[in-house]
């Protein structure tokens, strides 16, 4: 822009910026670069991970800039919003032009023929040829409009004008997908729940750690894992019953890739494990005397001769090289008001060299029950996502594989009772397919000629 030209008002300049393809180009690449960073910097890890990697000060900076969850950081959302604004304004700007092109009167188009690229001569007068040529053009291209100019007749036909809307369909689909994401973000939630076999739950834990009441209950009737012959797992299956106001209303089998839905809330098979209820153990007291006791999970039980103990963690089978293979339990033991101590217990009858504590436990039998971990989701925006995806793919085909093609044929007398046909064509894209169309038109004009003779 030269200096003496008056500067456009700021609003107009902003509009021009947002209407430009250059901005789209820049924003798309910017999003790509940021996304790359997001795959290199660990995302959504606990604070300790960042403190270890970048130090206390580094973590504070990370947290303030949202780098630990950058795909949800305000500045990332802002860039998406800028892209959306760019899409809308750029599309609106072009749309008026597109509507003007499509709204042109075919009669005016017929009168404004492009520069002819090809011409051929037919036997017979233009008047005699006109119906045939018109019919051919109509069958190959579309509705024919005519313009008369002294002795010359110009025929015009077009097809594929609708394909000009393909680009708007694609742009709209991006907005629809963004809207779907927003709807899910604001009105949806995601969480998980572990259900021990036989247990009924009515509350889940959301991803942000908050509990959430479902408004109905879910019981895990049975959890099974099946295996292939080579030992690889083949299926995880949770048989569940949905209960509404205490009454069973629906049963379902949850397997990976096949979730169940109740009242628009979806449940997915996500993980599994074993949860111990109680363990039968030998308790060797400070005097070395053995008692059989039952210890509970996460609960104190009194011990004979004073003191109390409970199970903190239990695993059914632990392989410790060639030394030991069997169950293992972490037991919390408290004597009187003393500080509780952690002890490790192995199966009874195994000789494991251990630090001798004041007391000892040996595991006899554990009552364990499998549990199933379910992913829970409510997302009212998901249908918008699928609608957007469908529109996008349709839009691509419209935008990339169809074009708005216009053809003109001008018939004029040559003076020897023959007709000169001039052919002109234009397209908004894909010149190769236009060339094929005009070649076919020219070929059929001449071919008709031969049969007509």
């Amino acid at each position: 822009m030269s200096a003496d030209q008056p500067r456009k008002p700021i609003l107009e300049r902003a509009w021009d910026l947002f209407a430009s393809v250059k901005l789209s180009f820049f924003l798309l690449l910017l999003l790509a670069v940021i996304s790359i960073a997001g795959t290199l910097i660990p995302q959504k890890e606990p604070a300790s991970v960042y403190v270890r990697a970048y130090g206390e000060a580094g973590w504070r900076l990370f947290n303030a800039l949202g780098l630990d969850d950058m795909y949800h950081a305000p500045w990332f959302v802002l860039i998406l919003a800028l892209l959306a604004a760019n899409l809308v304004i750029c599309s609106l700007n072009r749309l008026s032009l597109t509507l003007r092109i499509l709204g042109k009167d075919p009669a005016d188009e017929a009168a404004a023929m492009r520069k002819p690229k090809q011409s051929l001569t037919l036997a017979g007068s233009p008047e005699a040829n006109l119906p045939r040529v018109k019919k051919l053009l109509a069958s190959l291209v579309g509705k024919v409009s005519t313009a008369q100019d002294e002795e010359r007749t110009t025929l015009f036909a077009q097809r594929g004008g609708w394909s000009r809307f393909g680009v708007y369909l694609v742009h709209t689909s991006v907005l629809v997908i963004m809207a779907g994401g927003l709807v899910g973000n604001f009105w949806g939630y995601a969480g998980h729940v572990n259900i021990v076999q036989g247990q009924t739950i009515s509350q889940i834990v959301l991803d942000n750690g908050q509990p959430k009441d479902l408004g109905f209950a879910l019981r895990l009737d049975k959890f099974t894992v099946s295996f292939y012959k080579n030992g690889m797992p083949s299926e995880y299956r949770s048989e569940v019953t949905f209960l509404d106001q205490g009454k069973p209303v629906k049963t379902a089998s949850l397997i990976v890739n096949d979730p169940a839905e109740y009242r628009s809330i979806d449940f997915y098979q996500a993980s599994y494990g074993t949860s111990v209820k109680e363990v039968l153990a030998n308790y060797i007291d400070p005097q070395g005397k053995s008692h059989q006791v039952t210890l509970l999970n996460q609960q104190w039980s009194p011990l004979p001769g004073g003191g109390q103990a409970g199970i903190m963690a239990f695993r059914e089978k632990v392989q410790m090289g060639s030394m030991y293979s069997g169950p293992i339990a972490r037991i919390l033991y408290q004597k009187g008001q003393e500080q509780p101590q952690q002890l490790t217990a192995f199966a009874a009858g195994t000789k494991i060299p251990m630090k001798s504590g004041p007391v000892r436990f040996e595991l006899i039998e554990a009552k364990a029950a499998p549990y199933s971990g379910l992913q829970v989701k409510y997302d009212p925006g998901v249908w918008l996502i699928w609608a957007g995806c469908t529109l996008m793919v349709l839009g691509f085909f419209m935008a990339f594989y169809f074009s708005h093609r216009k053809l003109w044929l001008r018939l004029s007398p040559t003076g020897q009772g023959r007709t000169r046909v001039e052919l002109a064509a234009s397209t908004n894209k894909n010149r190769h397919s236009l060339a094929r169309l005009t070649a076919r038109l020219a070929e059929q004009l001449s071919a008709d000629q031969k049969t007509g003779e």
Partner: protein
Amino acid sequence: MEAISNQIILGVTFALLATSVLYLCTWAFKSQAFGWAASILNWVCFGALTAAIILRWVASHQMGIGHAPFSNLFESLVFFAWTIALIYLIIEMATWIRTIGAFAVPLAFLAMLYALTLDPSIKPLLPALKSNWLIAHVITCFLGYAGFGVSAALGAMYLATGQAKDPASPRALLLDNLIYQTVVVGFILLTAGIVTGSIWANSAWGTYWSWDPKETWSLITWLVYASLLHSRFMRGWQGKRIAMFSLVGFACVLFTYFGVNLLLSGLHSYATGK
């Protein structure tokens, strides 16, 4: 049957090397005799590879663990080579420019060579992969990758054959248009691949998008090619720049395919099950 399939895969790998050399000779000596030999061998490779994939599929059914042969890196590499051969052969039929083969066919050979270093045994499907979307997702993604692979080969050819010196020549314009056309094919298929992947993720993991590294890199690739397609509407972005852009885009494809599995952990790492 599995053994026969693996024998064919071994044979095709070396045949693809021979094909690549023949295409390179076609380019170097401007000889159509080499060109015809290369094309015939290429069709033989494509046919044999198709047979190997079908045999592997049948073999898995005979083992009682029947599934489409798209379940691990080995199988995907073989399929990738097949898709590159397919897209290249379509372009060869449409243009008869065999020099493109000197750049495209080596990609198929390298994919096969990589596959040979991996364990070829047929394994049963993990629970997460047991879905009807497996076939649709893998086919769309890999045809898309192959579209981008061939566009990168065209881009490399554009640069290596010095088209940038005369970007208005018919050959340069044709190559430029072919790069664009193959990117469009790749872009539509990648989009379909991301969509089918999202639908699948939504039924397997309960979320259509979780910013998993594989998902994110497929989006990065999509964004890069989306900007390439938009650059067509900006002045000065034809020819050399598009050729270079197609190479950058394909680098993203390669990272999405290999880099993510090797360097980043995520939901797509089927080698480590929970």
